[in-house]
């Protein structure tokens, strides 16, 4: 399907001669063109798609071809690999709080396994009375819950720890967060069935990917709100999100929510796996490091305006963005247009859910001069998103995990934004 020719949209005869360039220059779309055409009293007009019946129904949907720029970019992988890296959610092109499944960020360590669900089992073993195995079909018969919650890679926003501001956009800097409706079986039910031994304190989860990626999770979290997720946004998990089953730990660093879940071993201590020691640990400037930074800190980012979304000229704009906290609900979000000197409270959309993205909005009259936009979130525990300076305090160079400092976008007189430090 090709894009419509703009000249198709504009009346070609009658009194309503319109200056086509005006529309192109201000970027007004077909809808506006039709409205004006009507007003000047020409014959009722039909765009091409109203002159013939549209295409038929189909078994599976896809976005409009006009939205083909809305993709998970940039994608990156370790040298010589395609499956040891990330793809990022294009936050700057999305609204609301749910991430379409096709745009959910990815962080894999050895690619996406192609799993036949009939040949996949989840094994629960270790400090239990009865080691048990479950397949996806069996798990469907268990009591299930569904919740709308975020998943965030602990390396998300880590680009802001660079000594100089990187030339990035919402996706490249903050695109390792997404939110979905996750449905599945509370893990406590399965552990109960296996019979927990009193010495059990941790659960080592491992995936059925080529890396058999593993993480140790405190039993307390597993029994509190962990699920074996089977569904994402109402459909079975996508392969890139752990099909046919994954661990989901609300609010905790994404890596611990092991995809393609294959084994859960109840232990008395953490296994000290590569991805909880070598990686995803926080090195401080004094050479000491912290393991097991699990809940993701309170954070927010303005998604519009943001780099790549230029303002068309002075006037009233909506500032919009997302805020989230691994410790519960967002209580409030404030925005600043003067680099943090003064702040205004943003409006929150209706859905303010625990450990989920919350959409905030504020109206802004841009006078065309330079401006620096910031947002700052507060969660229900009272935790306030830190400034960059305080989020950086004590960090070792290149220590980039678990960064939740504020994002500043500088808007120039041309209306373009870029990442800056204030």
């Amino acid at each position: 399907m090709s894009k419509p020719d703009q000249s198709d949209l504009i009346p070609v005869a009658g009194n309503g001669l319109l200056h086509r360039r005006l529309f192109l220059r201000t970027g007004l779309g077909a809808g506006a063109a039709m409205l004006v055409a009507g007003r000047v009293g020409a014959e009722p007009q039909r765009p091409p798609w109203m002159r013939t019946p549209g295409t038929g129904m189909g078994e599976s949907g896809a976005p409009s071809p006009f939205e083909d720029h809305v993709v998970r970019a940039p994608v990156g992988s370790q040298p010589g690999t395609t499956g040891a890296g990330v793809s990022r959610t294009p936050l700057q092109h999305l609204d609301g709080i749910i991430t379409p499944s096709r745009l959910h960020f990815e962080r894999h360590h050895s690619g996406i396994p192609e799993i036949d669900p009939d040949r996949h089992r989840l094994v629960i073993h270790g400090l239990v009375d009865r080691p048990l195995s479950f397949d996806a079909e069996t798990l469907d018969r268990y009591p299930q819950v569904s919740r709308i919650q975020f998943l965030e890679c602990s390396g998300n926003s880590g680009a802001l720890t660079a000594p100089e501001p990187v030339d990035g956009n919402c996706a490249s800097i903050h695109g390792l967060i997404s939110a979905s409706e996750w449905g599945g079986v509370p893990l406590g039910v399965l552990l109960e069935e296996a019979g927990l031994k009193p010495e059990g304190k941790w659960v080592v989860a491992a995936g059925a990917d080529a890396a058999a990626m593993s993480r140790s999770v405190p039993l307390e979290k597993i029994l509190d709100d962990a699920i074996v997720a089977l569904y994402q946004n109402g459909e079975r998990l996508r392969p890139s999100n752990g099909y046919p089953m994954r661990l989901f730990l609300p609010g905790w660093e994404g890596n611990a929510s092991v995809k393609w879940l294959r084994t859960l071993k109840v232990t008395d201590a953490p296994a000290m796996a590569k991805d909880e020691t070598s990686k995803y640990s926080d090195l401080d400037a004094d050479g000491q490091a912290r393991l097991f930074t699990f809940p993701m800190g309170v954070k927010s980012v303005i998604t519009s305006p943001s780099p790549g979304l230029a303002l068309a000229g002075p006037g009233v704009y909506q500032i919009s963005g997302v805020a989230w906290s691994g410790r519960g609900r967002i209580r409030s979000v404030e925005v600043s247009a003067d680099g943090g000197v003064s702040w205004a409270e943003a409006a929150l959309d209706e859905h303010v859910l625990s450990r989920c993205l919350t959409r905030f909005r504020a109206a802004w009259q841009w006078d065309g001069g330079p401006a620096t936009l910031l947002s700052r979130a507060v969660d229900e525990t009272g935790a306030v998103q830190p400034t960059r300076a305080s989020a950086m305090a004590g960090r070792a160079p290149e220590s980039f995990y678990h960064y939740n400092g504020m994002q500043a976008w500088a808007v120039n007189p041309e209306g373009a934004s870029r990442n800056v430090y204030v």
Partner: protein
Amino acid sequence: MFMYKRWMAPSLMVAALMMAAFGQAQAAESPGLGVPLSDSEVAAVDLVVMPDGRGLPAGSGDAHQGLDVYQRECRICHGDGGQGGPNDRLAGGIGSLATAQPVKTIGSYWPYATTVFDYVRRAMPYHLPGSLSTDEVYAVTAYLLAENGIIERDRVLDAETLPAVQMPNSGGFSWAWPED
């Protein structure tokens, strides 16, 4: 109003049951459909190696044998002697963590030697995980520890000796969990 309440009662009961089942996991009734497994069925999927050595299989290897394995299976991605390139650097950097250029490697950063065995057995070599024998995993683990100057090249690693290896940065970590 009365009628309404009478009609509501059963569904309230259902709601309470659902909350018991769906809310607090421990209180839930399980349909009990899990399939019991034998020890050998569990062993077939269990790759967990604990820092104290639990989970390590029988077998052994030293750095001399490990050099062969490394040159053949690892060097192309991790460089000569684990010095890195194109993929992660695995050796060196000891003492660099508190400097302006910290270099995180097995030798400089990792708190436990068992993690090397656990990880290599799970995931390496990247393109053919699971292709090394148990002895080869011990051997290449010994090689990486020797390259980092942590053990002698003649040191034979097995289920007893590997967990006894003292890592230079073993005291370099605190836990952020549980939170205070």
